């Protein structure tokens, strides 16, 4: 059952990645579509990251005691100032793990 799940997931994910790379697929992208698609990466990556930061335990957590929120704000500042992916990720993750282990009495945060 697990193996069947893995095989079917593999197919779904691969098809979603490959489909529009296939030249025989009749598809013409006009300037409107390409402009729309140019917002794909920022919109999608934000939509994945935001719930992790704002609802780490499934509920809206806007308090200063939410380490996800504080570290994310730090990451935004660092990314804006340095434009350096690795530096931003490493420093904000370091700060996060310190803050998070201080408040480690909380229940395990849920994923997404």
């Amino acid at each position, binding site marked *: 059952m*697990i*193996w069947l*799940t*893995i095989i*079917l*997931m593999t197919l*779904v*994910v*691969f098809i*979603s990645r*490959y489909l529009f*790379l*296939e030249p025989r697929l*009749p598809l013409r*992208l*006009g300037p409107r579509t*390409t*402009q*729309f*698609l140019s*917002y*794909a*990466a*920022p*919109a*999608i990556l*934000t*939509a*994945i*990251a*935001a*719930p*992790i930061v*704002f*609802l*780490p335990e*499934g*509920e*809206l957590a806007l308090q200063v005691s939410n*380490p*996800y929120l504080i570290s*994310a704000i730090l*990451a*935004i500042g*660092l*990314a*804006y100032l340095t*434009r*350096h*992916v*690795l530096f*931003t*990720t*490493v420093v904000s*993750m370091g700060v996060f793990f310190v803050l998070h282990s201080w408040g*480690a009495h909380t229940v*395990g*945060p849920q*994923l*997404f």
Partner: protein
Amino acid sequence: MSSQVLTQQDYRFSAFMLGLRAALPLTLAIIPWGLLAGSFALESGLTGLEGQAMSIFVFAGAVQLVVLGMIGSKAGLGAILIITLLITSRHFLYGMSMRGHMQQLPLRWRLILGFLLTDELFALTGTKPPEQFNRWHALGGGLSLYLGWNMATAAGIIAGQQIPNMDALGLEFAVAATFIALVVPGIQKISTLCAVITALLTSVTCELYQIEAGLLIASVLGMLAGVLSARLFSEPAAPHNEGQST
């Protein structure tokens, strides 16, 4: 003649190595996520082999983590596949964006780079115009991410057998930190800022009300907000792959 062949091989090799190097920060950043995918697989009742197989074949962080949670809570196969499709649907958009870059490549290249086309690889290659696309560079980046992801999964499986509750460590903050580091420097226009803010508010709202298609809804609304605000502020329309078509 032979020196020319050599030069071309050198060129390919250096493009490949440059791709590897460009993807290193992102590869490091997905390690905590991969650790989680490995340890969480065991907690959800998969064997180590099954957990590793998921990273080898599926190679999709968000999908794997969400599905592992569903397997752990005994969800049905149909529900799992629908969620997989919803979460992975963003890759249709990546594929469309990369069409101008990749559709003229030979089949084996399209299959390989298509398989490797993750959020991170798209962030590396999709932000450049098709003329600057280099298959060897993309392959180097993609393989770096693939190997990093699978080694981290393996480490997570091994560590998960020793350290219980690894999911309480907050490893998924690594996901957020990486994506922030990728998105923020790219906000150069008001319209991109509007897209990001819309996606942020919508995704948080959907999560709050536990709407399962939240990721898709938030992404599409964010992209629409980008287009509309670009028109509203009459930004010059200069998408990088304009005019690229079949």
